[in-house]
């Protein structure tokens, strides 16, 4: 496998994303909500003079925990465009006629959705942490971020959640030929993370080291299984002929 060819494909997709207004809009909604609206809500809460410090911290943690789930909603629009787009624009045939292997193509498509998603997630998180620090310093007298919880979410959970979402969406998009259905199904496939989020939220699962390890192992298992599944479905003849 020649990674450079996967890169060539991913970079081509980035350039197309840049020119697609719908995709850019869907990408910028995330930093807007997660990075700016959430801290503004916290700012609103702080105005209340009766607010206790532990209540404030719970509120911030609630929003932090959303970072377990929300990044999974970024890849659907990217992945569905990057794969279903090649089908609907009929660009797949020359692409498949060139000397790239199915694996190189698959990997290129995964990178194409993964990198922008992770970039947008981190950008949102950075904004979120920065604004929260600014808004809460007067009340807490220390900078709330960075902290251990958020570090784990950012570095260990988000990459897996995004990877998982990318894989699910590549899988769906290889099977489905219309863009809207593909991205809707993709978003739907993220609902298990909603469950995970509420589990944390209601303290069913405390965020201790053991639970975290189990969670990560589980995510790794899912990522690997899905990769194998995607690879078996991602077959050039099937992708090419199932739509015309």
């Amino acid at each position, binding site marked *: 496998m*020649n990674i450079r060819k996967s890169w*060539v494909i991913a970079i*081509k997709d980035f*350039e197309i994303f840049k020119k697609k207004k719908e995709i850019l809009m869907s990408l910028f909604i995330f930093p807007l909500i997660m990075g700016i609206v959430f801290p503004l809500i916290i700012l609103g809460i702080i105005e209340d003079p009766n607010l206790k410090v532990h209540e404030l911290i719970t509120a911030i943690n609630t929003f932090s925990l959303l970072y377990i789930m929300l990044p999974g909603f970024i890849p659907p629009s990217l992945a569905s465009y990057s794969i279903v787009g090649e089908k609907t624009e*009929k660009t797949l045939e*020359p*692409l498949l*006629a060139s*000397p790239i292997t199915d694996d190189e193509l698959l990997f290129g498509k995964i990178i194409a959705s993964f990198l922008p998603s992770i970039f947008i997630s981190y950008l949102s998180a950075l904004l979120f942490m920065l604004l929260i620090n600014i808004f809460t310093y007067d009340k807490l007298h220390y900078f709330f971020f960075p902290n251990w919880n958020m570090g784990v979410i950012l570095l260990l959970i988000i990459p897996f959640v995004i990877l998982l979402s990318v894989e699910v969406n590549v899988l769906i998009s290889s099977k489905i030929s219309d863009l809207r259905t593909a991205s809707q199904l993709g978003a739907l496939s993220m609902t298990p993370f909603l469950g995970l989020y509420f589990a944390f939220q209601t303290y069913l699962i405390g965020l201790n080291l053991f639970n975290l390890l189990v969670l990560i192992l589980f995510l790794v298992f899912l990522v690997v299984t899905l990769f194998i599944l995607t690879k078996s479905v991602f077959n050039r*003849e099937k992708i090419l002929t199932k739509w015309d």
Partner: protein
Amino acid sequence: MIEVENLSKKFDNMTAVDNISFNIEEGEVFGFVGPNGAGKTTTIRMLTCLISSTSGTAKIAGYDINKKSDTLKIRKMIGLIPDNVGLYNELSAYKNLDFCGKLYGMENSKREENIKYFLKMLGIWDKKDIIVGKFSKGMKQKLAIARALIHDPEILFLDEPTANLDPSSSKTVRNFLIDLKQENKTIFINTHNFAEVQQICDKIGIMNTKLLRVSTQKDFKESIWGIKTIVQLDKVTDSVLNALNNVSFKNMSVSGDKLIFDLNDPQKENPAIINTIVNAGGRILYVTKLDPSLEDTYLKFLREEN
């Protein structure tokens, strides 16, 4: 260069290509014609390793399309213009070609050189930075040709390359194909355009799920129409007819002031015919060979097949 042996393709229970066999030599231009849904595109897709065959095999430059290890080698040496141009509308003409060149692993300098060469050759160099979405159909078609050639392929597969083109653009494309033929490229063209086939193809294949015929244009025409000489006279007189009957040119017909001869060996028979006519006092205005268009030949052939 291309050897096809008993190749078939079924989609579920529908046979799209039924047991076809033919060979194309290096440097030959092969025109693949047939009605809509005849299996032409399906054949190109099998030969370019885009879809698998149901049975049978084909070798491209000695490599087997059914062998997984050979398919990459085949893809490296072929260029494809699919029936849809398949360009990225959001990218510029230059970026489209650049992307393709990179997929073929071309060195930077060679890639730049080829992009420039082909865009100039096809007259779209000054539009290189415009996004393809703004191109006309003809310009897109030209760009698709440039893309198929960017990596210097030895074999070209073209699926209806001049469909949608205005006469002057199709002429540009046709002349370009003639140039490529001079470079000894092997070219496989699917087309409905018989003027094109007539002008550039060495050999034609007629497809209708089964391969009905493969031959040179000349042999194909002669097998359908025979070899005919037309002699246009000032006037067809009895003495001319009598003289010809005496020499027993059996397959002769009269049509106005024209005599039409069905011949086996024109080299020998034509001079004899002309001598006979002249000696009988006939005044010859023209002598021509009956040369129906390829299109008419094809239509007659299909009628006879049915």
